[in-house]
């Protein structure tokens, strides 16, 4: 940065103190939510139903957004019953889109907290919180990519294909997509049209309700193609196994579009507790507070009152389920800050502790 520019930015910082301890944009956000710069917002501009239980949302991200790379995902949050629930969705639009909007395509998961609201209830004009695009499930410079997708796992791949088409540089793609029935197809019509306009793109749809076909028959040359796969856990495990057996694991990129959810254990008598930052893993019972568990394991985690009133011991629950010993309530939402002085393990737990 030149001297002038750095001086200007210093002056800008000082001028920003006019709103301290906030930043000026937080006042602008009172009337224009997209101006928020501390927590990024996006406005729902349109909704479009793709298939039963699947909806595409067009979002206009506000200040501080940066363009995504095709295949990346973004965190999306919305308050439901007062609690902000955050999930990660692949961006399904191409970065080349010129109106500054992105799309995410959401499938309502049974029991899904956020997905069901996004698919069934969200209205145009709602503001969501959004993170920044991230992830390295992106296309490399390869001339013959193979895409394997199932269900809503097609979303990051759709972004890649749309992007290639928008740039007019479509490589020799083979794309195998699994959908239960024709009615369950997402983006089917659009991709078929695209196939006509760009003959290098080959779109193969398998309707699993009507039986499967051998993969070798579908894509005889899969062993020489670099491959991107996205879909439900079962599909990805199959693909990984097949590629490993063929010694082709290196050529496989996988995106798990749904995080592994911790199944709520029926018997909640403790479990394995992993403290991710320090890498310590111990067994804990269901009655001992995790703070005590950590101390017995030799960790010295930050805390204050040890009785659930001061929040000094708040620790991020990255996975698993804990029980609040005061109320008996279980907490299993990944990313929640839990008070480890009053929570015990209910099954296996991973925490990201502050030290």
């Amino acid at each position, binding site marked *: 940065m030149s001297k002038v520019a750095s001086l200007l930015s210093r002056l800008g910082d000082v001028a920003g103190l006019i709103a*301290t301890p906030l930043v000026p944009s937080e*006042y602008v956000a009172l009337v224009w939510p997209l101006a928020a710069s501390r927590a990024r917002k996006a406005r729902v501009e349109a909704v479009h139903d793709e298939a039963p239980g699947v909806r595409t949302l067009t979002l206009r991200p506000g200040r501080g957004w940066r363009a995504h790379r095709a295949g990346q995902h973004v965190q999306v949050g919305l308050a439901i019953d007062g609690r*902000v629930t955050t999930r990660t969705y692949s961006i399904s639009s191409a970065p080349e889109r010129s109106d500054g909007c992105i799309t995410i395509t959401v499938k309502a998961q049974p029991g899904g907290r956020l997905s069901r609201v996004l698919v069934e209830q969200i209205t145009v004009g709602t503001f969501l919180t959004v993170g920044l695009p991230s992830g390295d499930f992106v296309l490399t410079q390869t001339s013959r990519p193979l895409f394997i997708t199932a269900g809503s796992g097609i979303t990051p791949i759709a972004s890649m294909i749309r992007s290639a088409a928008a740039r007019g540089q479509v490589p020799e793609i083979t794309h195998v997509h699994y959908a239960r029935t024709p009615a369950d197809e997402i983006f089917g019509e659009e991709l078929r049209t695209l196939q006509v306009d760009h003959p290098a793109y080959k779109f193969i749809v398998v309707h699993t309700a009507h039986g499967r076909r051998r993969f070798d028959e579908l894509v005889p040359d899969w062993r020489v193609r670099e491959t991107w796969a996205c879909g439900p856990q079962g599909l990805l495990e199959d693909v990984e196994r097949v590629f490993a057996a063929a010694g082709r694991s290196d050529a496989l990129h996988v995106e798990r579009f749904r995080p592994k959810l911790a199944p709520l254990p029926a018997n909640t008598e403790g479990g394995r507790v992993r403290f991710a930052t320090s890498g310590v893993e111990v067994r804990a019972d269901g009655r001992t507070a995790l703070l005590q568990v950590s101390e017995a394991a030799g960790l010295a985690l930050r805390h*204050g009152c040890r*009785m659930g009133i*001061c929040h000094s011991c708040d620790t991020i629950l990255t996975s698993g389920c804990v029980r609040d010993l*005061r109320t008996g309530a279980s907490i299993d939402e990944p990313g929640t*800050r839990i008070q480890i002085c009053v929570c015990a393990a209910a099954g296996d737990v991973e925490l990201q502790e502050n030290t």
Partner: protein
Amino acid sequence: MIQSIDIEAFGRELDTIQKDVKASLGDRDRQYIKRAITVQRSLAMGGRALIFASLPLMPAFPLFLGVIGAGTAALGVSKILENMEIGHNVIHGQWDWMQDPEIHSSTWEWDNVCPADQWKHSHNVVHHTWTNVLGRDRDVGYEILRVSEKQAWKPVHLAQPVYNAMLAMMFQWGVAMHDVDPREPHLMAGKLAGIGKKAGKQLMKDYVLWPLLAGPMFLPVVLANLVANGMRNLWTYAIIFCGHFPDGARVFTEDEVANETRGGWYLRQILGSCNITGGPLFHVMSGNLSHQIEHHLFPDMPSNRYPAVAPRVEAVCAKYGVPYNKGSFARQLGTTLRTIFRLALPSRRRAVAA
């Protein structure tokens, strides 16, 4: 303490109240805090706008005074809301259940020279755990005032009516210095640096940047901001001093709280805290610290729930014969000030035995 009550049964009844509220938190609570924040920020903007709008009216002096007075009052009220109903309560983690990164104790900073992280230690940890325990709770007289007969009299206390008045006017600085503990000399430099940094920004905002925008009319803006901050200081002082110092509030020795159970901790919170009666607006302006008892029982319960919880707590207290100290603002503040004046002098009676 109070003998002969089943203290654990008493504690369980209070636990039930907390559990009920936790289970029922939802969108209405979220709307409450969001609206409080919007109102407060709008008041701050509106107040500052009025202060600026008054400047060209200077020649019509009474009109100028009216407009700048209204602006200053709006700014002062917004600072009170920001520190009390919003800041104090968010920093307590009352709204952490929303998992909203914008309204969370881990990141919240307030419009006060005291850095939030130091406040979390001096207030949330020390004061709320060791409420009214002599030698542990630094809120008992803030280490400089003698507010209980159990504190030994020293000649310096003769001057306490004077420095009490100074503390009231500069209360935010008292709050800022609260976590700087001479008994922890190794931490002092770091804490003072934190206060310096925070205070620098605060002073820059109210006494340099905003006044600069007024150009030659610098001075009226400085004065208006000074008055707004002063309003906030006096009001927060008054509310907070009514929390634990009015007649009837108990202090405890370390021996009394050794081996305290959860029920015993609850009991101490009640015996050591005082409520102020008043209308809904008064409660909001006090950050609901007018429900000091409920706040001390459930420090991380959203403050908008205290009014509904208070009668339940009072009923449990009545059932177990536990005194529940509530009184008008005049009564609570009056007896507090009387104590500060009285205890400036050595006590004639011997300290009341525990």
